[in-house]
């Protein structure tokens, strides 16, 4: 029996010498150390041996087992090392082969920019709310100091909902500003909200005009809010979205629902301010209208304009990616051509 064990050991080691790959090594392990190997069988049959032989044979068998196991471990290490240092070119993987494809999806560029814009304002403490696309004339115009026949209605060419005689006029909101009123009717100062959403215009479409577009409305109302706060807020915003190198212009403009009124433009990316087709040769591209909430409007929603003040702004969302990526046709956004969408 002892002899058999010794032969077994020698044979196993001889075989091990010949092995040069891990598959053969695994077969060797099964053959010599596996459940059905001779060595295992011997170890299992120890109980059937005469009592006086058991310790010697048992010790010997266990020693051989341990020795084979450590030889195996050593061989494994050797093989591993050989694999890592092999000079054989045939073993090299062609790493230039294309990888396994995964289906990839992206957010629409407008959503991406809306997320960015909302993030900037959220960090400044603004909360995000939404409002209806179909509005009453009251919220879209009258409550914003634009009664019927007001010349400023020319600034907002309107799509009207077909209405039966006697019904109150409904429309597709021409801006997100109606939410200023809805918000101030619901909440008391301090108010600090932004409203992303769709707006619509009765307008022939061309490279710079769409009948549907996105706006982000902003509103902050409290005691002591000033035009300087508006300037600071919007400058911060422009820096976040366009970088601190880009020029920003904060000028006087007119919107019936703010006083004083503001227009913010940023330096044209197409020409660096020298004038080109993109900016209408002015060097500037308007990105938002803003101003201090008109005192009549505060009074209309029962907020005392002598105690409180506030600012509001309305930002044209598509302008941002157009400027940033040099997109020269706004119609690309909602025609949803994948060759366009997949660029962002």
């Amino acid at each position: 029996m002892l002899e058999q064990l010794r032969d077994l050991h020698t044979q196993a080691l001889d075989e091990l010498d010949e092995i040069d790959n891990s598959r053969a090594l695994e077969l060797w392990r099964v053959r010599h150390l596996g459940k059905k190997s001779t060595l295992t069988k011997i170890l299992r049959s120890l109980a059937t041996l005469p009592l006086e032989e058991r310790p010697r044979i048992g010790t010997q068998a266990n020693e051989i087992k341990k020795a084979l196991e450590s030889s195996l471990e050593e061989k494994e290490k050797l093989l591993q090392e050989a694999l890592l240092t092999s000079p054989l070119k045939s073993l090299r993987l062609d790493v230039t082969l294309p990888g396994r494809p995964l289906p990839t999806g992206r957010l629409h560029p407008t959503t991406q920019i809306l997320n960015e814009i909302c993030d900037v304002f959220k960090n400044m403490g603004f909360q995000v709310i939404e409002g209806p696309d179909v509005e009453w004339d009251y919220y879209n115009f009258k409550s914003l100091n634009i009664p019927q026949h007001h010349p400023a209605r020319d600034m907002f060419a309107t799509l009207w909902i077909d209405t039966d005689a006697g019904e109150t006029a409904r429309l597709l909101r021409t801006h997100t500003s109606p939410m200023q009123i809805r918000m101030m009717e619901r909440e008391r100062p301090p108010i600090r909200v932004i409203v992303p959403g769709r707006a619509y215009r009765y307008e022939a479409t061309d490279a710079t005009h769409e009948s549907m577009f996105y706006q982000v409305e902003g509103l902050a109302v409290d005691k002591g809010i000033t035009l300087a706060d508006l300037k600071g807020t919007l400058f911060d915003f422009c820096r976040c979205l366009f970088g601190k190198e880009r020029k920003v212009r904060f000028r006087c403009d007119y919107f019936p629902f703010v006083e004083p009124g503001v227009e913010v433009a940023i330096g044209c990316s197409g020409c660096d301010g020298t004038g080109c087709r993109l900016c209408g040769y002015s060097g500037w591209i308007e990105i938002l209208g803003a101003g201090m909430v008109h005192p009549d409007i505060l009074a209309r929603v029962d907020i005392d304009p002598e105690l409180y003040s506030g600012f509001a702004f309305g930002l044209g969302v598509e302008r941002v990616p157009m400027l940033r990526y040099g997109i020269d046709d706004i119609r690309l956004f909602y025609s949803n051509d994948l060759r366009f969408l997949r660029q962002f």
Partner: protein
Amino acid sequence: MKASLKWLGDYVDIKLAPRELAERLTMAGLEVKAIQTMGDTWDKVVIGEVVAVNPHPNADRLKLATVNLGTEQITVVCGAPNIGVGQRVPFAHVGARLINGYTGEAMSLKPAKIRGIVSAGMVCSEKELGISDNHEDILVLPPEAPIGVALATYLGDIIFDLDVTPNRPDCLSVVGIAREIAALTSEPLRLPTIHYEEVEDSINLFASVSIVEPDLCPRYCASLITGIKIAPSPNWLQQRLNSCGMRPINNVVDATNYVMLEYGQPLHAFDYRKLKSGQIIVRRAKNGETIATLDGTERALNPDILVIADKEKAVAVAGIMGGVDSEVTDKTDTILLESANFDQATIRRGCGYLQLQSEASVRFDKELNNELPLLPLKRATQLLLELAGGRAAKGVIDVYPGKSAPKLISLPTQEVERLSGVKVNIDEILKVLKALGFECQENNSGSQILVSVPYWRSYIKCSADLVEEVVRIIGYEKIPITRLSSPLPPQKSKLSPVAQQSNLKDKLRNILTGFGFQEILTYSLVSLEKLQKLSPRLELKVQPLKVANPMTREQEYLRTSLRSGLLSTLAHNQKFESAGIRLFEIGKVFLPHNPPVIATEAKQSQVERELPQEKDMLCAALSGTRLELSWHTDKEMLDFFDAIGIVENILNQLGLKASFENSDDEGLFPRKGANIIVDNDLIGILGELHPKVVQAFELLGVTYLIEIDLEKLLTKLTGTKQYQPIPRFPSVTRDIALVIDEQVHYRRVEEIIQSFPLVTRITLFDIYRGEQIAEGKKSFAIRIVYQSPSHTLADEEVDQTQEQMLARLRKELGATLRG
């Protein structure tokens, strides 16, 4: 509004360079859209004198003109009929940059041989110089034009093209813009002095004015001039009109237009002799009344339109356009000059009815002040006497039913800083306001200023308006940059329905892009046909809201489903994309009838129909191959179970579990659609698109659709998640193969297995149909994981459970273990 810098210079000294001035005006609210330099291309054009005109030897219509340029004389061929000896004319040398009179394109002048005569240079028309469209005649300059001097020096100008906001009708005039420049640059404003001789006879002997509608015509002023002679206007006047983009007509019309541009007050000259009995009646048009307007169109009027009439008929549409019958012609010798004010809304409505706008109506539509008309009337009368001769009747007619006191606004001195954040002392406030024409009176303590608003600034109504005036003249660039320092409003709970809804939309967008879906955003407005095509029978389930004035038929109805936009987009992209396409949109659909709620928010008193229900939906479409072509993959097509898997995974990520049952959604292939059920409620559908819909949208191949109602989904998200301890005891895995009738749905098998508490996980890993089992049967291979939270499972315990399970499966579903 176009304004000439030379003209502005009549009223205010301009020391800033044009670009700088434009910048100042723009910053102050008067945007200069463009600066046009008249004469910047005239570098080779000089003033010459025509010293001889001889016939062209070879052409009847052409002449040979010899022009003296001071240092030399040049003879050139000229075709203009008006050329004559002694005229001062613009002469272009070879190489001059001109506009081709025929094609309108820019060109460089080259020497030419015209009918055998060499012509090196050219006498120019206005069109060739880019001044106007007149190409027939050469431009004849005044006799004092200096010979040999560059034309640009003499005639050049800088034209500002201004974008005037609706609140600044005063800046639709040169004087208004000059006043703005004066205030911005602290220069004095010089207004023209108005004085003219009148004859003995009072105007009241010749004419009378009666206003039937004083609300619509608060003021009507008129003057009368007899013995005038109609002629072309002098050169300087024509130039000024041209520079503002108006075409010169004759001295009378030009004078009224000039004063309109100067003061912003539209004026109208009637041929007095064509007014019956010299009567002017301002009244509403009668039903059925018509008038031929100056543009030669016969127009039907209605009582909403205000007209100027004589005793018999309408002679002008008030504030919009004059009538042909009372038009000033070459034979006119007496004119009645109108300077009036009309109700802004009436003018606006009238323009709408008549589809007609004019320089006059544009101004009246901006609400001119009742105090304005008199001064421009006198200015125009003076100018007419200078230009067309004649005698002015004594006095003017001034019917003024709408007179009101000037507006007074109290401005707390502190208000400027409170609203703008700019520290401005009272002296500075007073200086700015006075420069703009406001009269100011401060109280003793200096805490309040009582401001009287000048008539030309009727849009100034409250103290905030005055704050803007002060800050914009001081300069918006002086406003400091500060951050909001007021307290933050209380933050809304993330668990509020509104927060959850927007949160849900964000989550879904991220999940779907992760599953390889491209987000799209399509128009809210669609065509009726597209909505109909979603049903194989072309029927509409919901009547969509219609737009009364659509731009195109493609965008006429508010979408009641996201499907049409999605499928159109899919069809469009299939033309370019060979691999599979996965698209989704999250957006609103518009259902005409909102569930009844009491309209508390709406302010109007009358009963309102509610606004439509705007409902957030998710819609996704997938078609084509599962993955793009590659060396790793077979060309496997997306199928029904991709759609199911996507929905299962979406809901799984939200912590929900869906079940599916056959759907009868008519947009789906019959029998190949499923309702998505969560907690016994239908929250959406998925399935293969109906072949007729596929065809109607011209889609390529089988398309799968997923649609989920986000409001319904939201109601399922109310439960908060509950932590489950990680199991401490090992699990036991068993695989079984069940043979079962074809018509038994898998869900019933799963439900029975699931009902055993030790079962923690069930995976269907194969379905077999074929030779080895009986016909009409299928075999499900299922892996079941058993686990107990309290102890290590013994084999016997698992065996026992599984036996009970198999017994129930046999009894209830007729399922047997596959041998």
